[in-house]
């Protein structure tokens, strides 16, 4: 008796499968568009959150860097007029990288040889590590460990064996994790007592002496005012006095800032004069009265070059006849614009100061991911389940299970790709425009996180494709495994 020889079925080429998949997607355009929109919305939500997280982070970093720079004059004014504490000295040395002028300065002030400076630097790093550890401890634990000793006094205390015994007991009792172990800490305390403390004191003494030599150079001014001349002889003399780190570059920057501070003070002080207020109010016109003139309004007005020129002219001529100290209208406008930027920076620093926002961002990203999973799987499930009859029919025609899976996989990937691309773009636009209104365009432009944004885009599109593929392939796999008639019965 003749039997049919049942051979293996050939697999359809990927090309043909893709053609069929594309054909079907085009035919069900409305359905496909709805699915794409759902995927896009879910991905957009996620991308929005991601964009806000990365730009907040980038802006926070940029704002801190820039405000730190702008504090340079303040920092030097303090360094040149006040003796440092041991902890501040240690931190300054520990934070300075190799070759930093601050290290040479410390060496010169404390009279240390280069080798000794190197050792001192290493010890300072150690010391800062321990100081941070003690600062981070809860008050009660700290109190039990070292009693009332603060800052570097803990090193003095821990040289005594009696204090060490108490320390050991408390460490065991509260299971405190001392970095590097208690023995290393005691060893350091001994080193502190023998060399580090002495060196620190020497540096501080040198510092104090150097400050004293500066007093005649000030000519009666306070340090902050004197720093206006930092890029002139005064600055060089300061460096001569022992402040090695006060090099030409720093001096120029400090002088610049000091001048700027003076100029800003000059403009801001000007509205203490009633005449100035009256003139400004009448120039602004309308219902503005002299009492309305605030600093913010003043700076806003001065961003206009003509107004700045007029105001400067008014201040320097009768009746006020103030000394503008070489201030030009162009400079006033520049200051006014910078003032606005400073406002944005301060704002950014304030808005990003909240450390709990990091945890909240992580939480939001997780929630948005969940939204994506639910939204995308729902959309894909719906578009697959309404096609069980098609799957069954294809099986009747001799389709292999792998063909059906590939068909649905390709289609899901296509929808996921398009939805992911649209969604991540839309999410970025929404996210960045929200950041734009929060931090201002200049700030966002300065700190725009290109790298993280591109990575976020890729990840979001990838998430769209992967989620859509999983959510599309799973039900089609279930349906393809069934006998055709069972698949056809599923409604």
């Amino acid at each position, binding site marked *: 008796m003749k039997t049919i020889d049942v051979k293996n079925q050939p697999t359809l080429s990927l090309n*043909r499968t893709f053609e069929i998949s594309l054909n079907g997607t085009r035919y069900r355009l409305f359905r496909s568009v709805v699915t794409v929109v759902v995927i896009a919305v879910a991905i957009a939500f996620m991308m929005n959150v991601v964009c806000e997280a990365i730009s907040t982070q980038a802006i926070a970093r940029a704002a801190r860097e820039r405000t730190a720079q702008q504090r340079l004059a303040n920092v030097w004014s303090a360094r040149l007029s006040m003796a440092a504490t041991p902890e501040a000295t240690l931190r300054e040395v520990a934070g300075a990288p190799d070759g930093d002028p601050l290290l040479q300065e410390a060496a010169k002030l404390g009279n240390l040889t280069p080798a000794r400076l190197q050792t001192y630097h290493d010890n300072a790093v150690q010391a800062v590590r321990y100081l941070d550890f003690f600062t981070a401890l809860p008050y009660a634990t700290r109190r039990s460990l070292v009693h009332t000793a603060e800052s570097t006094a803990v090193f003095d205390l821990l040289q005594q064996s009696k204090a060490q015994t108490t320390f050991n007991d408390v460490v065991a009792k509260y299971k405190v994790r001392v970095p590097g172990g208690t023995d290393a800490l005691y060893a350091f305390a001994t080193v502190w007592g023998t060399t580090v403390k002495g060196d620190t004191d020497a540096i501080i003494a040198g510092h104090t002496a150097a400050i004293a030599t500066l007093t005649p150079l000030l000519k009666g001014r306070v340090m902050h005012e004197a720093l206006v001349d930092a890029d002139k002889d005064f600055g060089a003399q300061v460096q001569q006095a022992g402040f090695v780190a006060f090099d030409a570059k720093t001096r120029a920057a400090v002088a610049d800032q000091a001048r700027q501070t003076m100029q800003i003070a000059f403009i801001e002080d000007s509205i203490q004069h009633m005449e100035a207020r009256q003139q400004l109010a009448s120039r602004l016109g309308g219902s503005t009265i002299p009492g309305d003139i605030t600093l913010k309004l003043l700076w806003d007005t001065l961003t206009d070059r003509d107004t700045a020129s007029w105001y400067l002219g008014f201040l320097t001529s009768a009746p006020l006849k103030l000394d503008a100290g070489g201030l030009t209208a162009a400079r006033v406008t520049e200051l006014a614009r910078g003032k606005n930027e400073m406002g944005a920076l301060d704002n950014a620093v304030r808005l990003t100061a909240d450390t709990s926002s990091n945890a909240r961002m992580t939480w939001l990203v997780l929630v948005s991911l969940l939204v994506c999973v639910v939204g995308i799987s729902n959309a894909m499930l719906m578009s697959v389940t309404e096609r069980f009859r098609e799957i069954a029919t294809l*099986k009747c025609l001799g389709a*292999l299970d792998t063909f059906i899976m590939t068909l649905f996989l390709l289609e899901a990937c296509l929808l996921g790709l398009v939805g992911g691309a649209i969604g991540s773009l839309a999410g970025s636009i929404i996210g960045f425009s929200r950041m734009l209104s929060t931090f201002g365009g200049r700030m966002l432009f300065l700190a725009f996180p290109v790298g993280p944004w591109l990575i976020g885009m890729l990840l979001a599109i990838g998430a769209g494709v992967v989620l859509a593929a999983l959510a599309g392939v799973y039900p089609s796999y279930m349906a393809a495994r069934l006998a055709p008639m069972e698949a056809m019965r599923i409604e």
Partner: protein
Amino acid sequence: MSSETQVSTTRQADTDLKRVVIRTVNLRKIYEKKGVITEALRGLDTEINAGEFIAIMGPSGSGKSTYFNMVGGLDSPTSGRVFIDEVDVAQLTAVELAFLRCRKIGYIFQQFNLIQYMTALENVTTPMAFAGVGPDEARVRGMDLLDIVGLKDRWSHRPIEMSGGQQQRVAIARSMSNLPMILLCDEPTGNLDLKTGREILDILFRLNKERGVTIICATHDPRMLDLCDRLMWIRDGLIERVARRDEVTIEVGSINNELE
């Protein structure tokens, strides 16, 4: 489409009478849904010879579709066996089953079951693609098949752009795309009006006579009487009666009564 005129002289079924293409042995199918057990087939022993045109008659719910699905390898029986060309269908792997459905059997459904997003020609050539036929050859053969069912000039139409009868004709062309030896039809005229139904039956009749395709047709269309070689009545999942057409035509009046 006038197959009324005398077709072939020698009958395939007569020359190759003893070759059995489909055999079922004690075929049972029990559906269970939410605790309700339905015995759709209660032990069917049937034999169908190559080249035969068999009509399976019976009232709605008698088990015709269930029998059709078992015989076509579209669903698995609860017990009993189905042999297609002496091959036990239950022994086949998923891939072999796909091969069987692709080349040995053609299916025609009451609801046509065309792929909505494909044109008539694409619907007809898809099974050829599954069988590994190249696109160019498939197009030529597909057009020939569409010509046979009289839809050559509508090859680019999608199912929604066609009437029920035209869709069913595309389905017939599709079922013939890999020249199967068995054609299974489940109420092929059930959704069609009388005249269109007649045209479909004519096409099936010609395929049977001119190409020797074995046709198994579940129906309760009385016109099938004129076309088929044998009739099989199913009632409540059991074979009620099997008869050759010439035995039946005499009592045609009573059968018509039975159907009403």
